[in-house]
């Protein structure tokens, strides 16, 4: 390497760049993190499809079988239709709840250390990652939605409702992805993280209105289900995609928003600790 290579280029005269702060910069940082995650996804698009297969199998096998049972009132639709929003939400949660594994992997690699030593607000790191998980979830859900529609499950195609549903999918994914990063920051190792992840996903799924209405649950389970953010995502999606009527959307969106804000606040505080 000839040693005057750098000296002859004009960059050598440039002063150190000092990054300014502010809300605009914060948003740019968040979008840059999202961009990075999506660029990675672009190199590996098949993941979205493979992740969409299992939920569709749930719908086809479980949904069809239980459509004959008629154990409770599904509001005039088949059980398969009734459970579709539940399965969509479940696939969002299952993917997002293991998102924190990438945090641990990035810590082991050294990528996270590098980001944490850069002039990026912590909240931008957390929200950027979570939003990227949201976009990922949205792609995955869209595939499942289309496959469900192809197999003949009658779903509403109202543009405004679909748009609103997309927003709620992102909110739900942001919450569960942030929760996952919080868990990663606390347990710190892959093994423990996988253990906790597997421990909580099934209870979160069954203690929600994904597969059956809250009204048929025993009292104690009803309490759990009503503090479970998953229930509110399912409720909104069921309104938007199945009945076409959003009866309690304010509560659904409000609770999901509050859950996201709380999780982001805790996540921002704990995230840097994953490297200590």
């Amino acid at each position, binding site marked *: 390497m000839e040693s005057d290579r750098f000296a002859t280029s004009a960059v050598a005269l440039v002063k150190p760049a000092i990054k300014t702060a502010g809300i605009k*910069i914060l948003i740019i940082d968040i979008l840059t993190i999202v961009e*990075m995650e999506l660029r990675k996804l672009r190199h590996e698009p098949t993941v979205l499809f493979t992740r969409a297969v299992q939920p569709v199998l749930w719908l086809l096998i479980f949904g069809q079988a239980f459509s004959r049972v008629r154990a409770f009132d599904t509001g005039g639709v088949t059980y398969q239709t009734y459970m579709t929003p539940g399965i969509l939400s479940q696939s969002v949660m299952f993917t997002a709840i293991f998102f924190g594994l990438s945090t641990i992997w990035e810590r082991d690699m050294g990528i996270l250390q*590098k980001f944490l*030593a*850069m*002039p990026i607000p912590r909240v931008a790191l957390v929200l950027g990652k979570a939003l990227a998980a949201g976009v990922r979830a949205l792609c995955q859900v869209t595939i499942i939605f289309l496959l469900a529609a192809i197999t003949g499950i009658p779903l509403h195609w109202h543009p405004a409702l679909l748009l609103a549903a997309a927003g709620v999918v992102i909110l739900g994914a942001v919450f569960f992805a942030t929760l996952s990063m919080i868990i990663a920051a606390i347990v710190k190792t892959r093994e423990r993280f996988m253990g906790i992840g597997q421990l909580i996903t099934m209870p979160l799924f069954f203690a929600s209105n994904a597969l059956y209405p809250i009204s048929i649950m025993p009292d104690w389970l009803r309490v759990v289900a009503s503090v479970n953010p998953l229930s509110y995502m399912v409720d909104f999606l069921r309104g938007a995609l199945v009945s076409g009527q959003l009866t309690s959307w304010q509560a659904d969106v409000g609770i999901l928003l509050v859950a996201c804000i709380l999780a982001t606040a805790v996540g921002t505080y704990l995230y840097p600790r994953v490297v200590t």
Partner: protein
Amino acid sequence: MEVIVEVEQLKKSFGKHTAVKGVSFNIAAGEVFGLLGPNGAGKTTIVRMLTTLLPPDSGRATVCGYDVRRQAARVRQCIGYVPQALSVDGALTGYENMMIFAKLLGLKGKERNKRINDLLQFMQLEDAASRQVCTYSGGMVRRLEIAQAVLHYPRVLFLDEPTVGLDPVARKGVWEILAELRQIYRMAILLTTHYMEEADTVCNRIGILNHGEMVVKGTPAELKAMTGNPGASMDDVFTYFTGNYLDAGGDFRGIRQVRHISRRLG
């Protein structure tokens, strides 16, 4: 002499184990300071405290005049950091890795493109820029990491074991790059290494670290003179000052980390 990094009586414990036991040193602009020591000596822990990743238990450290604990955000503005472990995203191309970093460092427009292209050229990566990084050799990855770390022309560059796992040619390449960065930008560089030869070749001053303690500091020539044998190699210097060359082999954690990295780069 403009002092960029000031470290005074820095201490850090993990549980009962004290990893850094009151270490002090300064680094001036345009100086390459080497922290030399076996695996487990506490080098990475010091770097992590200076790069704001780990809060010190006690003592004081300033970087560019800012306190690493109380003014961490300011410190992050003026440093570049290449961690010990492999830190680029293999799924992205070399150019994408640079682009994302440049954006996060607040570089914009033409200026951003120019810096990215100039640095890729400087690091001889322009031909590989559109390839995914997982296809790069260990030396190329290291050069890309250094390029990312200096995109904003930081006053200080922290390099944790920059040549571990590299073949001799790639290692020389890294040394030359560091020499140029130092000369042209008067960047202060802190590098850690457990290679005696590397410390001898690249560093203006060396601090020998053993079991969390700074045993001695000085220029390579000064340290050699202190042993009373002017023809001493750095290996001799190390043995002279620590007295337990064989014993200072590091712990399992350190060894595992280094092996892990060598394998990834291999």
